């Protein structure tokens, strides 16, 4: 079974996926390119958390 930390990380990705899906359903151009998905994920799962950690 996954640890609590692994579940927390997975939860973060689920939230990121929910936003990605909502934007994608609204504007399907968002869904066509893997590289758009990669860029989005890098922003929300790495850049933003890294920036928040640096600020606080």
């Amino acid at each position, binding site marked *: 079974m996954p640890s609590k930390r692994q579940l927390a*990380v997975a939860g973060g*990705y689920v939230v990121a996926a929910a936003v990605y899906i909502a934007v994608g359903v609204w504007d*399907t151009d968002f869904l066509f390119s*893997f590289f758009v998905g990669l860029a989005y*994920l890098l922003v929300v799962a790495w850049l933003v958390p890294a920036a928040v950690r640096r600020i606080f």
Partner: protein
Amino acid sequence: MPLLIGSYAPDLMSKWFVYGIHIGGWDLKASDPVQFHRGWPGVGFTHSLLYGAVLALLIWRILGSKTWAVSFLIGQWAHAITDTGDTVGTMLFFPWTIHIHFGAWAYAGQTGRMTDAAAYFSGPGAVWDLVWIVYGLFCWRVLTRSYFETHVYTADAFWGRANRLVPMAALLVAYRAAFFYGTSRWIAWSLWAHVVHHYPYDISWGGPHWVSAAHSPSLTWPQLAGVGAIVGTGVAIFFVSRLEFGRRSWAAIRSRT
């Protein structure tokens, strides 16, 4: 990473021309999208086993990485073989130009990308994708940091080189992106097709039947025999080479002891 690139390789340069794009006052689109995408003349050879093998050999020769070459080959072959599942299929054994096709789901690329997406995510193709998503979730350990650091990072020098430019946390996110993208787009397209636009599901063989699908002609008996001979020869070569390799390995072990 090379497996991902390989899996995109067949459609990388051609899909935009199949669906068509509008630039300024220009509409660029193949006059016969099916022929262009999967046929010959056309770029259908990109969905063949030979194309993957040639590119893999080039990658091996230029980059000197067997891991990259084999991984790319697996990705490209996976795409080419998977596309035999639709009603047009692929010229898997190019330069033999017959289309291997199982007709499980409708090929609708010629209808434009929105109808194509709606059809794909309404038929057996969507079910096939779902199988792999569920399989991926069962194998969740491959997405963990420890698996990435222990098995993936160490197996491919690309990650080490990339790590000189970006931190490990970013590489881990990039590694997870393929599964994230595949799963998220499956959900998003399904919602778009069935909640927003109410396209009907039809997961019967060859479906959905509400879309005007393109079809390849059925194979004749001599063609089927030819395909059987090629596949049989390939399987025989594989097992004989493994047996021979096994014998040599045992001989090498015996000579050492």
